[in-house]
């Protein structure tokens, strides 16, 4: 319901020419900033899409790249929860597994198309996420982290012990079909990139909508959010299911990138921890964060392939150093100059009266 719609005009009546001009300059600037953001994303994704055309790019590079993309998508999913709502899940490996098995089983038993598999995975994870949200959202902070950790663990034991899921032997799949065409490394890479583009676009829209604002309001100051009219439970449940659904997409891709799923892989709760880590290292505030984090988490063991334990140690060291020196994540470090520049431009236009106090790092 809306109240006193006439107030808007009242405000406008109080403005003189000068302020009106300033308001419109500010609006135009804001629009330009948004255009620049979109342009940067178009460039990045364009490059990713045409990458297979370069002769030096080999098939194995593309499947490695697909793996990175899968992690980025999963991390974007976790970001919606951790970054936007401030709720922490250490159990998203569970949703990854749900997505993977949904798609894998459908392909195995019904021979569905990859596109159908991905959509089914998305829906399945989203629905289960919504159901679980009802339990987990009764908990706050640390309690929820432990609850979700238990969930991932639970999914692992189910996969291991119920014969339908074929336990540690796993499910071996045949080739992937997209819209009737059989695809290989190149094709799968393109499917992954398209998924990534769609998910990124969605997350961008989410951030720049009232819904995203409500999520972030709950993260930063719960009481203030409620005082702004945000229904806490409703929006948290929404965030939780969106987050689960996105992770489900990553799960489906994960099953098909190697055409194999097994409980061995998904029962490992440290899978969940890895995704969370990607978000923390990359940063969960800017969309760039999961890109950096996903890349880091996948590529680190890749480079230290011969020294699995050493990559563990490096992961730990990097994580601790990032938390200590760049708590907002690596992406924040990259983006900070840009943000500062925009702030300065607007201050000059808007006629700031604050003695310049450089933003400090918390």
């Amino acid at each position, binding site marked *: 319901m809306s109240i006193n719609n006439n107030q808007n005009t009242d405000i406008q009546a109080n403005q003189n020419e000068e302020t009106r001009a300033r308001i419109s300059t500010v609006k135009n600037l804001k629009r330009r900033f948004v255009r620049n953001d979109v342009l940067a994303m178009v460039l990045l994704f364009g490059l990713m899409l045409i990458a297979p055309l370069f002769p030096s790019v080999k098939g194995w590079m593309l499947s490695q790249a697909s793996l990175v993309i899968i992690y980025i998508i999963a991390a974007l999913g976790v970001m919606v929860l951790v970054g936007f709502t401030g709720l922490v899940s250490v159990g998203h490996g569970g949703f990854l597994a749900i997505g993977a098995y949904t798609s894998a089983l459908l392909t195995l038993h019904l021979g569905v198309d990859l596109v159908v598999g991905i959509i089914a995975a998305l829906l399945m994870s989203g629905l289960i996420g919504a159901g679980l949200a009802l339990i987990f959202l*009764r908990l706050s902070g640390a309690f929820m*982290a432990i609850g979700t950790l238990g969930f991932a663990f*639970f999914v692992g034991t189910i996969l291991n012990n119920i014969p339908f899921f074929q336990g540690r032997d796993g499910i071996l799949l045949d080739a992937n079909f997209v819209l009737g065409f059989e695809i290989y490394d190149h094709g799968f890479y393109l499917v992954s990139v398209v998924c990534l583009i769609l998910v990124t676009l969605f997350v961008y829209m989410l951030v720049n909508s009232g819904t995203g604002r409500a999520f972030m309001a709950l993260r930063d100051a719960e009481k203030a959010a409620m005082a702004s009219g945000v229904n806490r439970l409703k929006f948290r449940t929404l965030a939780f299911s969106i987050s689960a659904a996105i992770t489900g997409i990553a799960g489906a891709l994960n099953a098909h990138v190697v055409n194999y799923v097994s409980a061995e892989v998904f029962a490992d709760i440290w899978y969940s921890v890895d995704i969370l880590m990607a978000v923390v290292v990359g940063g969960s505030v800017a969309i760039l964060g999961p890109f950096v984090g996903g890349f880091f988490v996948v590529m680190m063991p890749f480079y230290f392939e011969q020294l699995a334990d050493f990559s563990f*140690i*490096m992961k730990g060291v990097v994580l601790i150093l990032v938390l200590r020196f760049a708590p907002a994540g690596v992406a924040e470090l990259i983006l900070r100059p840009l943000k500062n520049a925009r702030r300065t431009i607007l201050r000059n236009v808007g006629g700031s009266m604050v003695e310049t106090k450089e933003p400090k790092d918390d």
Partner: protein
Amino acid sequence: MLGQQILSGLATGSLYALTAIAVVVVFRNTRTINLAQGDFAMVGAFLGIIFLKEWGMNYFAMLALVVLCCMALGGFVERVVMRPVAESDWLTLFTTTIGVYYILHGMAGWIWGRDTKAFPVSFEATPVEVFGALISKGHLYNMAIALLIGGVLWTFFTKTKQGIAMRAVTDDPETAYLMGIPVKFIVTLTWVMAGAIAGFIGVLMAPIIYVSPEMMDEILIKGYVAAVFGGLYSFRGAVIGALMIGVAENLAGGYLGSHYKTSVAFVMIVVLLAFRPQGLVGIQERREI
């Protein structure tokens, strides 16, 4: 049969209880969910093998030395890793312990290898009879040590100045600081204590589950779940929760089949939290976390 299931459930439960107590100790005073708690114990177990096999120490000297080493490890982690981020939000604290987890995990794998190792000491498998139920000597011994540690902790928290000060810090760190209680020292002490408990757990667990970098993962999760039973604040709740998990797990294993054994903890936590989000003992969270 039932009595026996319950008794060995209590025996495993008492080890979960120790883990849960260590989790609660750290959480109460530092808002940190310590994911590396299990790894302290894992390091302790590996050290135990070295002390026994390579240094030829006897069991009790080994136990004492392992506990000392784990205390040092706990203190070291607090001073070097946790203190610089101590003022951060709980997620940062939590993820920092993930970093510690990765490092300890990787180091253990690097130095000692990924294969499971047998712990040289194992107690005679011959069961003894307690109240008509049969239980192995190892289990009995574990329960006794767990009880002993529980008693020592209780005395520490109620009878000693540092123990009371630790509770005061839990209660209201700002006022504790005003009273002249060195809050930072107490926090270090907290981690040292968590290390000590981990040392015991490592040595007690090792003969039962073998030694490997991953040995504590599952137990740690059950320790967490138990800690949540007490609302993460109450020792009593954590112990009750841990014993319940131990017993329920054993009963499920005995009557439903061992497949279901490991899921019991999760199902229990879901049921509990659905009805009592504050935990079993109903202690309200006092700090915003």
